[in-house]
């Protein structure tokens, strides 16, 4: 199932490192790490389309958000349902929506595909934003799914909760990774690889590429559903923002950060992205820039620079610019040690993907 003993070792080591985190970090950071794991699940599910099949979708976040809303919609007000009910429901709903959206949008290619996935994703956004179905623009709180399996329930106190939820997310992330690794090493994965490299030739060889792409789209959507479910469980809150297309763009950024050529890339990208998102907060707490400029007598200027540094979207925008301008292959183009580089296929020639 795994590529090499080395790959298996890297996976085990990475998992072990992540598994030890709750023993070392404060609850705030455990919760932050859970946020990062959810982002990693989303980015990993999208990698099946972007890195593996060469399909850049801007509607992926919609399936994620739809799944989170599904949890909200099926959960009674007072008590959470079993995760054994909510997770399959969320995954099925997201997969079903992906089937409908994919069936239509895969009739187009390249940029049209981008625009159509974006538009359909936004349609799902508007459903939650403009109707009272899910609490409207303000969002809504929900009772978390319970960790009960076949009558056995794993209970936890409020203080233990961050750690429990962290492990629930970690288990799902690892499972998703293994599932995708298995999928990509199957004959099906080989077809996706062929489509990414040269779809025209694949059709001439006898592959009905539409069906394969649709299958990948549905699987990716369903996996995004698992990520959205975990988000709802983590935050116990849903709002239209999680359905919006900015989430999809951020997931693409995580993939680009981590690199298109591997399955662990999106995970690393998601961790980096989440960490980056914390920077303005940290800077805001410590006010280093304001203090520095105050020491050299530029108080006003320092306050302004400090205010700029605390702007999250400004930082995000600048980081993206820097990455697309300077690191077109993501952080992977920095010379990383071998074991965290390719996990599937050959490194695609980037030019090969540019077939509109």
């Amino acid at each position: 199932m795994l590529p090499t003993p080395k790959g298996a070792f890297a996976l085990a080591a990475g998992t072990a490192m992540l598994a030890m985190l709750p023993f070392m970090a404060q609850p705030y950071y455990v919760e932050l790490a859970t946020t990062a794991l959810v982002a990693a699940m989303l980015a990993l599910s999208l990698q099946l389309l972007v890195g593996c099949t060469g399909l850049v979708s801007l509607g992926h976040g919609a399936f994620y958000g739809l799944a989170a809303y599904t949890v909200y919609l099926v959960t009674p007000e007072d008590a959470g349902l079993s995760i054994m009910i909510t997770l399959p429901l969320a995954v099925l709903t997201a997969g079903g929506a992906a089937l409908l959206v994919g069936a239509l949008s895969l009739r187009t290619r390249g940029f049209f595909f981008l625009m159509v996935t974006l538009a359909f994703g936004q349609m799902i956004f508007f459903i939650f934003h403009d109707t009272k179905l899910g609490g409207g623009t303000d969002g809504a709180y929900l009772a978390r799914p319970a960790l009960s399996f076949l009558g056995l329930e794993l209970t936890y106190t409020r203080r233990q909760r961050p750690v429990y939820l962290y492990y629930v997310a970690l288990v799902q992330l690892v499972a998703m990774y293994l599932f995708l690794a298995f999928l990509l090493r199957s004959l099906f994965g080989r077809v996706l690889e062929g489509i990414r490299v040269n779809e025209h030739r694949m059709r001439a060889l006898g592959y009905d590429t539409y069906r394969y792409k649709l299958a990948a789209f549905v699987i990716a959507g369903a996996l995004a559903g698992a990520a959205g479910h975990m988000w709802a469980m983590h935050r116990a809150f849903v709002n239209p923002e999680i359905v919006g297309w900015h989430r999809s763009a951020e997931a693409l950024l995580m993939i680009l950060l981590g690199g298109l050529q591997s399955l662990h890339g999106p995970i690393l990208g998601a961790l980096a992205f989440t960490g980056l998102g914390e920077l303005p907060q940290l800077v805001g707490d410590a006010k280093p820039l304001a203090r520095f400029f105050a020491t050299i007598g530029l108080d006003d200027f320092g306050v302004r620079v400090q205010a700029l540094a605390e702007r999250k979207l400004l930082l995000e925008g600048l980081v993206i610019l820097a990455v697309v301008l300077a690191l077109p292959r993501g952080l992977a183009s920095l010379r990383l040690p071998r074991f965290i580089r390719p996990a599937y296929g050959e490194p695609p020639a980037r030019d090969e993907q540019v077939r509109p």
Partner: protein
Amino acid sequence: MSLAGFLAQLLNGVQYGLLLFLIASGLTLIFGVMGIINLAHGSLFMVGAYVAFLVTRSVGSVWLALPVALLAGAAFGALLERGLFRHFYKRDHLDQVLLTFALILLFEEARSIFVGNDFYSVPVPTAFDFSVPITAGFSYSAYRFAVIGVCLALAVALFLWIERTRMGAIIRAAAEKPEMVDVIGIDARRVHMTVFAVGTALALTAGVLAAPLYSVYPGMGDGFLIISFVVVVIGGLGSISGAFWSALLIGLVDTLGKAYVPAVAGLAIYVLMAAVLLWRPTGLFGQRG
């Protein structure tokens, strides 16, 4: 609803559709000629709206904002093309998407830093702040008529430019056959810059015209961007006349839908897009694949 009410909604739909055309035509031109998707096109629309707001606040009339938007937009577009987009024509979709996504974030932050995060209304210029009586019981906003007029004038100018000039011929050729861009040779850079400048100027102008109608607010470009995508998908790749008819169609469907069947109106245009994708995936007016 009365006949007068229906007429008013019809005109609203036409006016909204024409505004969408200004945005979508730039998108489809830039896309058709350079093969690049500009997600920040909606932000350019937002910039136009804020230009209207700022000019109105300091000078008192939105009319001055119109030439400012046209000229500054053209210059700004040329600058963007030269400094940034030019380097991304050969890059893959993912890079282009993220580049333009970054621009959206930066435009929004710039808006937040320089103007703030509040909603502002922009007054309709006093010269047009009245209603034109059409029939005994029905009159219609003079400003909306003016918007329709300006949009139509720009649309005609755009058609003439595309259909009657040498550069227009090159643009049509490039949109039909991307390989043609190589044949254009030395002209290509100038064509790219011009197309980008025109597209940007049109988006800013649309923003200016829209400001008194819809107010200005954070993230206002997003909604218009996505509707413009729907317009381009329905209209077909790189087709200006396709964008025109499809923008009118969307404007009417959306406006009339919201007036008569508000419960499902938000979905109407997406259902329309789905139908077009099923029937003709290359768009109603695009070339058949």
